[in-house]
């Protein structure tokens, strides 16, 4: 049963570095039961003899057990970067642990070609008492590299991590950011064939994350990367394919990464309407009144629950109306309108004609403010509007209404960007300069 002879397939197959087939994992919620099942399973391993992993005989769940991963299948070739996204508890880290061989799958099969560099948890394998340098050797040794190989790479590792002054201090003095720098540096510097990164990267500062991004880009020529993250901008930047995990299952798997990201967003509600403030101003109603919705009823803020978000076409026209009541003590107020996208980024700020928030004089009765925004170039997806009423003289926020209205930009184009526009393109040619690879000897 030699493993090497098995891989003599066609050229496309010979490039595959990771092959996951119908993999599943069962965990037990109850700790004591879990230990007992562990005992039983061990005994079964020792006495049960050859057990065929037959997919037809579906494994029954014992009391307290649940599927942490089920029917997960994918393939990765050199140069692929897989983004694993999903809500907390969807089974992403469990899948990573199976890929690194930390835990065994309960169904299915995993095939990993080559050496694996993994950064799955912070500080794992770091002994706090020992120095960074000593830990590099131990960590490298744990990942399967010999002392000679580590000696060669030592300077690269320390330089990438940018902690040279602290490399001989005990790791227990490191901050979590420094630990993740060191961990990523070790995992990626030793030229693995497969690189597995868990969400720990979020702990590093922006500069470090950009470095990691660049390093992963470089490594993609020779490596397959699996990347778990909650940062969608990051995922859309480097991943060539994505899998959305939901409760252990693959909800969506695609090369069109923005599509998977959009589905991830759909899982989460933007939130209910929330009004906070000193009470000196109240927003009594907020609604969208574009041409297409002329007959829409004004939705009263207090009563509103899950109203259906309006659909607005790309590059379309948005008109909103707000009914306000402001205390007489306030002389003048301004209104700030911010449009948020699903990444919780404030993508659009609607100002007055002088580029500031428009200022109004308090009329001391019910006021109805309406605003038109032509040519909304926001990208596909759900958006929410926040309205703030601010007292002009003091700058105090009188009231803030989040999720005042919601709308969906309905467009077929998926993009990772927050806004997109159609640009005007033109090409001119210069026939005297020909393209081609020039050899410089």
């Amino acid at each position, binding site marked *: *049963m030699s*493993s*090497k002879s098995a*891989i*003599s397939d066609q050229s496309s197959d*010979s*490039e*595959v*570095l990771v092959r996951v087939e119908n993999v599943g994992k069962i965990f037990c919620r109850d700790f004591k039961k879990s*230990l007992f*099942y*562990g*005992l039983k399973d*061990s005994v*079964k*391993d*020792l006495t*049960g*003899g*050859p*057990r065929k*992993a037959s997919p037809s005989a579906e494994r029954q769940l014992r009391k307290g057990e649940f599927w942490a991963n089920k029917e997960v299948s994918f393939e990765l070739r*050199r140069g692929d970067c897989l983004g694993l996204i999903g809500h907390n508890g969807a089974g992403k*880290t469990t899948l990573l642990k199976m890929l*690194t*061989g*930390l*835990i*065994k*799958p*309960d*169904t*299915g*099969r*995993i*095939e*990993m*070609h*080559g*050496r694996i560099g*993994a950064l*799955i948890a912070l500080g*794992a*394998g770091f*002994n706090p*008492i020992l120095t960074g340098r*000593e830990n590099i*050797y*131990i960590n490298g*040794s*744990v*990942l*399967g590299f*010999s*002392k*000679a*190989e580590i000696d060669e790479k030592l300077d690269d590792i320390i330089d990438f991590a940018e902690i040279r002054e602290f490399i001989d201090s005990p790791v227990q003095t490191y901050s979590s950011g420094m630990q993740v720098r060191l961990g990523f540096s070790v995992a990626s510097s030793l*030229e693995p*064939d497969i690189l597995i990164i868990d969400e720990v990267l979020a702990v590093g500062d922006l500069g470090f994350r950009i470095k990691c991004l660049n390093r992963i880009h470089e490594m993609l020529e*020779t490596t397959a990367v699996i990347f778990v993250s909650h940062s969608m901008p990051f995922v859309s930047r480097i991943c060539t394919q994505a899998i959305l995990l939901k409760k252990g299952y693959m909800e969506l798997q695609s090369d069109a990464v923005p599509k998977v990201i959009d589905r991830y967003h759909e899982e989460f509600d933007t939130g209910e309407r929330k009004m906070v403030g000193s009470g000196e101003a109240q927003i009594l109603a907020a609604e969208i009144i574009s041409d297409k919705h002329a007959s829409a009823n004004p939705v009263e803020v207090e009563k509103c629950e899950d109203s259906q978000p309006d659909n607005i076409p790309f590059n379309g026209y948005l008109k909103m109306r707000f009914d306000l009541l402001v205390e007489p003590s306030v002389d003048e107020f301004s209104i700030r309108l911010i449009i948020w996208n699903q990444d919780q980024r404030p993508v659009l700020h609607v100002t007055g004609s002088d580029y500031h928030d428009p200022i109004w004089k308090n009329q001391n009765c019910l006021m109805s403010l309406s605003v038109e925004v032509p040519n909304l170039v926001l990208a596909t997806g759900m958006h929410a509007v926040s309205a703030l009423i601010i007292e002009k003289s003091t700058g105090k926020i009188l009231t803030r209404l989040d999720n005042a209205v919601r709308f969906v930009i309905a467009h077929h184009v998926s993009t990772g960007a927050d806004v997109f526009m159609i640009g005007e393109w033109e090409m001119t040619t210069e026939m005297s300069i020909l393209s081609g690879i020039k050899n410089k000897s």
Partner: protein
Amino acid sequence: MSSSHNTEELPVTVYSPQSALADPRRLIKEMYQELRDSRELAGALFKRDMKAQVRQSILGYAWLFFPPIATTLVWFVLNSSGVVKVADTGIPYPAFVMIGTLLWQAFLESLTKPIMSLNGAKAMLTKLNFPRIAPVIAGIGQTTLTAAIRLVLLIPIFVFAGVEASWTIVFFPFAYLSMVLLGVAIGSFLTPIGLLYSDIAKAVGLFGQFAMYATPVVYPMATGGFLGWVNKFNPVTYLIEIGRATLVGGPFHHLSIALIISGCAFVLLLIGWAIFHITVPRIIERMGM
């Protein structure tokens, strides 16, 4: 030295729910390979643990000598003051106790070390995939070195008690190592279940305290009564008797039994190792995320 990235030449690892026992030949190959792979890590862990012992300590390695010295002193005082009457031991009592204690502690520490090493490495075990045998090897190395260092105590005690060492002392290292072998062999069986239930480690700790009295460590082998019966069926008895015998050229009538026990211990160790290899990955899953 850049690693080859040619896919055809890459080592392939396959993970599946199949029990490792399904293919015994591969199992043995895997076990041997794991042992080789763990060399560097075990070495690093060994050095780390030896250094950690003395890092925040003033007395440092001197602490290694205190347990055997303490036991010897206590029993010497108990015996010489007549509080406890021990039968004639053939050689001066302090030397008798010291030798017995060294041998016994080598055994007991080897018994408990595998489980303790793995429990100590719990944080790493649940987060990284590495040769699981490495902490155990490092631990065994540590106890062996500790036991060897303690042998230094034999010199002053022999001089002080006026005991003459016999030529058979060349066999003493083997006898000493057989204590370690038996300890590790038994310990390896306890380790998988000990990882699941803390009862095991506690029971072993308790057992260690009493078992010393069931073995002729501080008294010569009992011949009659309940204790005689216990001594007779206690495998450690024979190893200790022979161990002592090699030092002083003393009675060797238990030699054949001791050799058989050592042989059995070796076989037991191999079986325990296989069990460890098969079950520990499963158990680690349960130990915590």
